[in-house]
């Protein structure tokens, strides 16, 4: 019994399992449609509307994917921490579903950020990787994401797992800026390559970037909602299985 009570399932029967499956998924459809249209417009703008970079040429266009992916990766971690804080304050497992869903998404987007950044760096700087503060911090954030996902999968769907995840996310979100600063100090004596100097960017570039950023954010919201529903259904399934056994 002691073991069984650790499972979220037995403890709160019925909570969060409200029958909502029959409702028409309006929000999902709207977000999905918006991100589809946004993606089409973004791709058109990135490849046809935005001017070709005078120095870097065509490879510079990866910038319009790289920056939004990095932004969504960071936003994802903020949402993991927000979900963690929400869970610790209210003990409502729906917050935990948000955190888990956002962690899975953020990990994917940070991975894509690292890959696209690497390709861009190869064409621009001539190297796949440099230990610049931004790159290093992104890599560390990736490790924290993977650590989070490993922790959650090892601990299973329990209250202890949700609390541990929340603590890791909160400590991580405080630690990431510190890591950034410390890597910055570590590299102060070394010449570091500049990652895209803002300044004389033509308005069409800024507009394309803004559209792309908005689209990726909407896309993130759409995916977050789907993964949240998946988390909910997994919780329900586990609950049903526990009630049968």
């Amino acid at each position, binding site marked *: 019994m002691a073991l069984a009570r650790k499972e979220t399932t037995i403890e709160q029967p019925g909570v969060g399992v409200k029958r909502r499956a029959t409702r028409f998924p309006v929000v999902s459809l709207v977000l999905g449609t918006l991100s589809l249209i946004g993606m089409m417009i973004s791709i058109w703008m990135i490849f046809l509307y935005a001017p070709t970079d005078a120095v870097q040429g065509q490879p510079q266009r990866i910038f319009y994917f790289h920056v939004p992916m990095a932004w969504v990766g960071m936003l994802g971690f903020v949402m993991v921490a927000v979900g963690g804080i929400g869970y*610790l304050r209210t003990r409502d497992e729906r917050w935990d579903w948000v955190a888990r869903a956002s962690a899975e998404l953020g990990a994917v987007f940070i991975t894509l950020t690292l890959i696209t950044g690497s390709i861009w760096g190869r064409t621009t700087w001539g190297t796949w990787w440099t230990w610049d503060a931004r790159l290093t911090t992104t890599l*560390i954030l990736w*490790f*924290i994401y*993977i*650590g989070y996902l*490993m*922790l959650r999968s*090892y*601990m299973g769907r329990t209250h*202890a797992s949700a*609390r*541990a995840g*929340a*603590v*890791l996310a*909160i*400590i*991580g979100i*405080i*630690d990431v800026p*510190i*890591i950034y*600063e*410390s*890597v910055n*100090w*570590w590299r*102060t*004596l070394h010449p570091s390559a500049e990652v895209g100097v803002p300044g004389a960017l033509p308005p069409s570039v800024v507009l394309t970037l803004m559209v792309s950023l908005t689209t990726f954010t909407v896309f993130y919201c759409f995916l977050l909602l789907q993964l949240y529903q998946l988390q909910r259904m997994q919780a329900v399934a586990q609950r049903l299985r526990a009630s049968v056994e």
Partner: protein
Amino acid sequence: MTFLAQVLAILWKDIRCELRSKQTWTGMGLFALLVLVIFNFAFDLRVDNKAAIAPGVLWVAFVFASLLGLGRTIAAEREKGSMDRLLLCPVDRKAIYLAKLLGNLLFIGVVEIVALPVYAALFNVPLFAGALLPIVLLGTLGIATIGTLFSAMAAATRARELLLPVLVFPLIVPVVISAVRATGSLIVAAPNEPPWLGLITAFDVIFLSMSMLMFAYVIEE
């Protein structure tokens, strides 16, 4: 019982446990020495590259050895079921955390005291005992604060030996950077360096306050 008395009581229990079994100390110490030996083969240390490599070797050995000891902290309590009894005691969770942290610091510290002279001899680095001690102590404190917190988390899983480094290494990066740099500036004084020792102290304070606040959530049943 006052807060301090509670901390000391739990700490004394751990010390007696360790004095009788001597498992953690011998294991960690031998491991640290072995890492030093392996690094000797991995990097062919010469006079011209010693200043760049030696601080890193020292800290990698310390970090690895620390994690071995840190993994045992809460896991040993859980194996014998004494964790539940500890939690049942009318003791502040912060006292449990502080006692575990001090215990870890003590165990790692003893290993470091043994490893430092060996390191100085093997790598032919002058042992700057006076200036190196605060760096080693503060760096170890930074590793132990985060490590103690996460050992409680990892102990609840099946794969704690695997999970603990995966969780702890990314988070202690600032401490490791500062400690390596501070140690390096002892061998070759570099100009325009940030105040690394002050930075380690700041990181320690941040990590310690975060961990003390969070520990109650981690061990709660």
